[in-house]
């Protein structure tokens, strides 16, 4: 199991009750230790894909394995590898940040005696030292995001999934978060990131997949994807390389 990719998704399909086909046979692989960016316009299927991997959304067809563990057969085992920072703020606003993080450890079977010092350190590292006992409702948007990162890391997951973690975060804080995430990958944590900030993906990711209308439009190393730029009619967009490629790959279907 140790050689298995952090995530392997094959022919993944999702059709919602009302008939919307969010995923149409998506196949992708996130290698262990990778920083993988999943890019796509709004409604492309990124959050649905993450939802299926983390078992928050039921899939219609296909297979998902996390570190070799099939979520259909070994869901609980697969979940132990994953830490999720969702797109929406989803903690109880009436709880204190320290309690939120420590409780999350509890759901993974980690006793409070271990969780408490670990949570304190995570909150310190993420710049929430003075807010541990504050009312979570009163945290700023950036603080809430950092709290969600601390919560996702409390069980020391091997695979961290971040769904637009820097949305609504100011430039300085965003750069601090980049550094924090880069350090995590250096320590061996695999990261799957979705973001609308393409410069963020360009700076951080080793591998990229661009998803559009529920299908993978391009996938490869960052260099592979950026090399597409040479063959495109660039100059049309006054933007970065990745952004030009992204717009080129997603414009037809969005038109």
């Amino acid at each position: 199991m140790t050689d298995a990719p952090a995530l392997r998704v094959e022919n993944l399909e999702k059709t919602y009750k009302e008939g919307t086909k969010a995923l149409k046979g998506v196949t992708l692989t996130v290698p262990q230790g990778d920083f993988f960016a999943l890019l796509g316009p709004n409604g492309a299927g990124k959050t649905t894909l993450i939802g299926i991997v983390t078992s928050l959304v039921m899939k219609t067809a296909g297979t998902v394995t996390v570190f070799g563990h099939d979520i259909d057969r070994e869901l609980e085992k697969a979940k132990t590898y994953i830490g999720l920072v969702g797109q929406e703020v989803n903690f109880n606003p009436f709880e204190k940040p320290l309690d939120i993080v420590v409780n999350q450890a509890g759901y993974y079977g980690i006793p409070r005696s271990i969780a408490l010092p670990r949570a304190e350190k995570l909150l310190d590292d993420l710049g929430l030292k003075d807010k541990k006992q504050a009312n979570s409702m009163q945290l700023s948007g950036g603080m809430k995001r950092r709290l969600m990162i601390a919560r996702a890391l409390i069980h020391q997951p091997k695979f961290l999934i971040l769904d637009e973690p820097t949305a609504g975060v100011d430039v300085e804080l965003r750069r601090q978060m980049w550094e924090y995430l880069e350090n995590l990958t250096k320590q061996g944590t695999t990261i799957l990131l979705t973001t609308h900030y393409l410069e963020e993906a360009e700076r951080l990711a080793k591998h990229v997949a661009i998803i559009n209308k529920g299908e993978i439009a391009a996938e490869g190393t960052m260099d592979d994807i950026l090399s597409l730029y040479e063959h495109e009619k660039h100059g049309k967009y006054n933007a970065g390389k990745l952004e030009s490629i992204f717009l080129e790959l997603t414009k037809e279907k969005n038109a």
Partner: protein
Amino acid sequence: MNLYEMWISFYTILRKDVIRQARVWSQTFLPSVVTSVLYFLVFGSIIGERIGDFGGVPYIHFIVPGLVMLAVVMNSYSNVAFTFFTGKFFSRNIDEILVSPTPPWLMIAGYVGGGVVRGVVTGLLVILVSLFFAVPAIVHWWAVVLFLILSSVIFSLAGLINGIYAKNFDGISIVPTFVLTPLVYLGGVFYSIAALPSWWQAATYWNPIFYLINGFRYGFLGFSDVPLGAAFAVLLALIAALTAVNWYLIRKGLGLRN
């Protein structure tokens, strides 16, 4: 997860809810105490004295088990329905558990545990209040404890189903108001079914709360409208059925996983 990790997970869900209950005690425990004071005052002391003995005991003694059960049923049910629903709909922090390796049955156990704590504590508070109006002899302590816990478990499980299915706040208030309250009142809180016409007596046997109240009343007074074994069997069957439904709903993600 090994057994120890499962215990930690269960304890975390339970502890979190109990702390919440204690923090908002004026919304969780106080209302039932105030309501039961009014019931004991009006139905027990004022009207009860005119009724005289009922089934060989003072009327206020007769209604104590029913009023305790009323509080237990309503509190267990609404605690789980409300907690689960707000976690699912309002703050969406139910995801914290859903993404974790906590299996569905453990999640059910944690939420039901919270409901049982709320139901049992409220029940004990109402018993305490009743002592100011009458001191009923408790004939079978074991039956009081057993039926107190059984009723909390059953209505916590029922509340969880409601919390899973509810799509808005109306969804968690309709059942307690229009289903539970009539069932409790018609389950024999204030009367014995011997006082009812035969067709109504037959209908009452379909009311699960009737078995709870009577099992509980047996503990207090030593007699009931239904054999204790039958009451116990009906309640165990209900627990099994409700647990199975909850497990199925959470495992399938109905109302939870889009």
